[in-house]
């Protein structure tokens, strides 16, 4: 067993002495017990120096025993699991734990950067805004890298997080934050009333301050009351108690965020389990029983290791049986601090003195002091003599001006308590000042939320229990649960008398924000320079911006600002409280949405067949589409694609086009409806016919295109582009439900119902004949270009057949119910074998569409008009339709607009690239002559050269002109000829034939 736990009491505490745990801190071996935090275990081993501060690299010890800790931050774990800035005060000890101090070099004891303290006279708040400006180039080169290296705290792992996270939803009537007396009482009341309750506790043990402070409830010791209460709650099936879970935020509509540290108390998560889980909790009501945070007093040397919050000191002694010091002094301005004296005495520790800033103390405490044999000094701590190894001596300014010294190895400090007002303030509410406790308390809260107990500024045990119980009962009632809650647990209230004391003037640095090294004089400087608004103060000094978000520092900072600016604390106000309440791992917010499961994947009906064929896939939105089908011996994608295109143009090929959006448009007004959403007319389309349609946005710009067929008088089948499928459905529903509700039309997405294949090439009809029933007439007369009808396939399966062509060849699209899509691909291969059928992918599809001059995504850029795309003639003048009026605006019909043209390089061997710009030949490229750009390019096997489409100013008037393609990004410049965008079969004979 490593280490001797020299500072562990012989008995007591909530640690399991039968379960010793080994751990390392900065490479040194120690031991602790199950039930320890890393901080309590370090204390039990006599470790005082645990970290270095942000700016001055001052030695720091453990200040608190909770999630408000500013000092004791470590790098926990190693390798890919290294977690920087982990609070030792909340990290549960496990066997084999490894932690390292951070922000120091080469070691914690000997940190070279502590030289910064020598420059402290210059490194005041905001000093960097006033210097490092000359020479200008030095900022990025010298100053900034140095600042960045010095700043930051721990080191992130730098390699992928190996652990898993997930996210879950929970629903309840009453959500409770905190399991102290108020939280447990709230849970009892709500649970008894029949409410569905979720109680979140960030600690791994339930009980909150009761675990450290004890007390008597309903006549029995607190520990027994906790057990009895937990047993009762465990018997309620709709009460869920979640430990290691922090409620971190409240969002709209009663949605709360919580983080559950499922397996952080283990070296690594067990197989199939997550490290952490993000909860989205939907609650009708929420009781915030998150307690309060004890606040420091600002005095010189208050950051010396060994200076600790009084409540934390007694938590370590009482809960963990670990002794931060043997001879303790207490500096308090309130009654509560004295409890640390009682706890310490009870554990057999020495009290060196109590320095009480109040004018009076109670007779009970006076007699305690005389019994304990320690002096009570009326006054304040004005300095601390000590260093890395802790406190040695404490200087006291006595009321009346005299000075005293106290020898002690630990100083407990209590400046009073600040209710945890985060959750109640996250909807930009500002807390209000309560002068009897000199603290901000919630002033209202987000809808459905209420604070109770210490979180509401009522610190007495009796008040916590009664308020918590009442809040729980009321919350259940509001949520419609009317069962009998019974009576509230009862306890006495302790006296809480406090004389505000924020800052003791003295020589030496007095820290307000420990982690960010913000001192009282920094706040005074900020005021002097006009940064009086609390938000300016925060931003100028960085007060409250550290990993603890000012939980221990903000109010003291405000109080000092108030004092120097001559305003009251409530006049000075608070900054805005922002979630999360504690920092939350980014991985938890992502859950399983990372790596290959970042987004869902959509597969076409023939996907697995294409995998068998060795297809290369491309991501298109969420789809995986076959991009091309390489064959043995082909040296690159271009060779494969060229083969596929040639095969289609000379024989026949097929391509899965199921990714197109497909919508059934039903109803007697279906035609009238389509007339309003397309620029062209569909009401006059004959049954059994298909027509290409173009729709605009209301602003007159082209939205989407596709082919729509009329399958029956009251049934159209509409297709959209792959990219816009979902959006077009949404748009059409808007048109149906909002714009044209008088029309009797129904819309259903049938995108996934149909596997759709394009079959293209001179042999397409011959191939099809093999597949459809022989009774089907596929002749040009029986089924002409733009025909659409149901057909029966051999074997009896019904399919929809469309005579439409994207490739420019004689082509069909055939739809079969999707579960037959795989069989369809296989059958097309079989049926097409005699014709040399070739499956082709999206690249070949793209090549053929460019050869044909069809527009696609790059031309449908959201800034082009129908006329820009050469489709202006489709715009009906006989009807109203979406986008009609705005399309007529002067800039959208201007003669110098960029319009689609074809381009081919004058050097036929030259490759084209999309994104090159078009400049008039002979001119030097500049903003004044940038006339357009290349939208789509391909190598055309048919023309045996690269061709492309471009958007070019007045392009259609300039056919035949040689212009310059300018591509400085890729260092290319060459001439291209503007040409008709239809490179292949411009008369369309092939597709009609």
């Amino acid at each position: 067993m490593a280490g001797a736990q020299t500072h562990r009491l012989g008995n007591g505490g909530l640690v399991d002495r039968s379960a010793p745990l080994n751990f390392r801190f900065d490479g040194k071996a120690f031991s602790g017990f199950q039930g320890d935090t890393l901080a309590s275990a370090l204390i039990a081993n006599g470790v005082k120096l645990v970290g270095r501060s942000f700016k001055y690299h001052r030695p720091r010890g453990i200040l608190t025993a909770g999630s408000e800790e500013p000092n004791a931050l470590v790098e926990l774990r190693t390798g890919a699991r290294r977690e920087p800035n982990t609070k030792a005060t909340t990290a549960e000890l496990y066997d084999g734990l490894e932690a390292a101090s951070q922000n120091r070099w080469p070691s914690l004891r000997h940190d070279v950067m502590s030289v910064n303290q020598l420059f402290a006279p210059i490194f005041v708040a905001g000093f960097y805004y006033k210097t490092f400006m000359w020479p200008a180039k030095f900022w990025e080169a010298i100053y900034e890298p140095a600042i960045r290296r010095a700043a930051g705290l721990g080191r992130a792992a730098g390699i992928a997080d190996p652990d898993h996270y997930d996210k879950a939803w929970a629903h309840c009537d009453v959500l409770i934050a905190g399991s102290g007396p108020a939280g447990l009482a709230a849970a009892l009341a709500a649970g008894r009333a029949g409410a569905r309750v979720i109680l979140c506790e960030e600690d791994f043990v339930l009980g909150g301050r009761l675990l450290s402070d004890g007390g008597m409830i309903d006549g029995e010791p607190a520990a027994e009351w906790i057990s009895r209460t937990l047993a009762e709650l465990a018997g309620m099936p709709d009460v869920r108690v979640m430990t290691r879970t922090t409620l971190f935020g409240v969002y709209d509509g009663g949605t709360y965020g919580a983080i559950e540290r499922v397996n952080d108390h283990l070296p690594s998560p067990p197989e199939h389990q997550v490290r952490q889980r993000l909860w989205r909790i939907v609650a009708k009501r929420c009781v915030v029983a998150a307690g309060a945070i004890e606040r420091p007093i600002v005095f010189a040397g208050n950051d010396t290791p060994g200076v600790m919050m009084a409540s934390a000191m007694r938590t370590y002694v009482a809960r963990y049986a670990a002794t931060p010091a043997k001879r303790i002094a207490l500096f308090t301005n309130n009654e509560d601090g004295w409890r640390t004296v009682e706890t310490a005495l009870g554990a057999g520790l020495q009290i060196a003195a109590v320095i009480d800033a109040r004018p009076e103390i109670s007779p009970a405490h006076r007699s305690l002091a005389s019994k304990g044999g320690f002096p009570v000094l009326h006054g304040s701590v004005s300095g601390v003599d000590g260093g890395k190894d802790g406190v040695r001596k404490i200087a006291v300014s006595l009321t009346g001006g005299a000075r005293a010294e106290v020898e002690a190895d630990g100083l407990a400090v209590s400046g009073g308590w600040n209710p945890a007002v985060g959750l109640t303030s996250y909807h930009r509410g500002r807390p209000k000042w309560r002068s009897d406790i000199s603290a901000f308390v919630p002033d209202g809260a987000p809808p459905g939320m209420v604070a109770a107990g210490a979180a509401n500024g009522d610190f007495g045990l009796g008040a916590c229990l009664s308020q918590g119980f009442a809040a729980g009962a009321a919350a259940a009632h509001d949520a419609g649960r009317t069962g009998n809650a019974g009576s509230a647990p009862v306890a006495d209230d302790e006296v809480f008398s406090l004389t505000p004391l924020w800052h003791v003037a003295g020589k030496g640095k007095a820290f307000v924000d420990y982690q960010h090294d913000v001192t009282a004089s920094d706040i005074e400087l900020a005021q002097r320079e006009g940064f009086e608004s609390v938000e300016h103060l925060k931003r100028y000094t960085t007060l409250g911006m550290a990993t603890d978000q000012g939980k221990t520092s903000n109010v003291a900072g405000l109080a000092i600002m108030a004092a120097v600016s001559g305003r009251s604390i409530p006049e000075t106000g608070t900054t805005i409280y922002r979630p999360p309440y504690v920092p939350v791992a980014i991985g938890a917010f992502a859950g399983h949405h990372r790596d290959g499961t970042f987004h869902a994947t959509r597969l076409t009906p023939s996907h697995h067949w294409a995998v068998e064929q060795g297809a290369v896939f491309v991501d298109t939105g969420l789809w995986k589409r076959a991009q091309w089908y390489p064959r043995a011996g082909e040296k690159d994608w271009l060779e494969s694609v060229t083969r596929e295109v040639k095969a289609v143009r000379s024989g026949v090929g097929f391509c899965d086009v199921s990714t197109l959006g497909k919508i059934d448009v039903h109803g007697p007004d279906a035609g009238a409806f389509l007339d309003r959403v397309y620029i062209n007319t569909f009401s006059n389309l004959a049954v059994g016919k298909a027509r290409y349609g173009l729709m605009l946005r209301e602003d007159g710009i082209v939205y989407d295109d596709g082919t729509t067929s009329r399958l029956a008088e009251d049934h159209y089948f509409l297709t959209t582009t792959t990219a816009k499928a979902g959006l077009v459905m949404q748009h059409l529903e808007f048109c149906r439900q909002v714009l044209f509700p008088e029309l009797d039309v129904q819309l259903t997405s049938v995108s996934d119902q149909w596997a759709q294949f394009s079959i293209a090439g001179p042999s397409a009809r011959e191939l099809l004949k093999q597949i459809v029933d022989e009774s089907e007439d596929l002749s040009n007369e029986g089924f002409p270009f733009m025909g659409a009808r149901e057909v029966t396939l051999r074997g009896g399966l019904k399919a929809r057949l469309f005579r439409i062509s994207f490739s420019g060849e004689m082509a069909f699209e055939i739809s079969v119910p999707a579960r037959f899509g795989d069989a369809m691909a296989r059958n097309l291969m079989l049926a097409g074998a005699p014709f040399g059928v070739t499956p082709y992918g999206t690249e070949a599809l793209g090549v053929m569409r460019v050869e044909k001059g069809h527009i696609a995504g790059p031309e449908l850029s959201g800034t082009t008009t129908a006329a820009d795309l050469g489709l202006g003639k489709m715009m009906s003048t006989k009807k109203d339709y979406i986008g009609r009026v705005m399309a007529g605006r002067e800039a959208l019909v201007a003669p110098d607009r960029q319009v689609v043209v074809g381009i081919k390089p004058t050097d036929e061997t030259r490759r084209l690239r999309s994104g090159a710009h078009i400049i008039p030949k002979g001119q030097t490229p500049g903003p004044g002559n940038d006339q357009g750009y290349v939208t789509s390019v391909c190598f055309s096997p048919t023309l045996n050269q690269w061709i492309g489409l471009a958007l070019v100013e007045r392009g259609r008037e300039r056919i035949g002109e040689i212009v310059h393609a300018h591509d400085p990004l890729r260092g290319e410049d060459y001439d291209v000829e503007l040409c008709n965008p239809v490179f292949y079969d411009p008369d369309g004979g092939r597709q009609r034939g």
Partner: protein
Amino acid sequence: MVEFSWVSRSPLEHALVTGTDGARGIEAGISLTEIRNFDLIQVMARRGQAAELGQAAKARFGVAVPDAPKAVRTSDATLIWSGPDQFFVLSKGGKHTMQTLEPALSGSLSDQSHARVLVSISGAKARTMLAKLSSIDLHPDAFPVGAAAATSMDHTSVTLWRGGDRTDGQAVFNVLMFATFAESLWHTMLDSGAEYGVDINHTERLA
């Protein structure tokens, strides 16, 4: 002349491996069963005709069509609310098809039999696992037998409803998901259930 075989393949045929997945050595907390042989017809009322459609459907199925998010079982079909004035007719393959329903129901009908995959989820940890996928409150009081929801899982639209309990009293949740998303969502389900252990099956029988 080549003989074609028209084999129907479930979108999950590749991904679904019968057996167990995830945690072993414990009784599986999740049971996932894909139901493969069903007909699913979406029926939408025409404007002003919801009542007529309801009457026709009642005549056909013997029960009132759900007018709120619910699933109603009849002797040979389940009618599942899918939106205002619209519902699904889910039946064993070949039972209620476009051909049989179109003449009987005066609405707009679309065949969705191939557009969806049907998975039923049960087991002691079913609700716990579904809490990772669904934002719907599945507490027995909030989502009793017959409750239904048109909702989303993993940003993907699904229809979720609670069927009749298993003979051992465990709740059964049915999910209709889009076919082209099914493999992806299936893997997400397996991931969500892995820590509880998952029993995987498929069946041709619609319960």
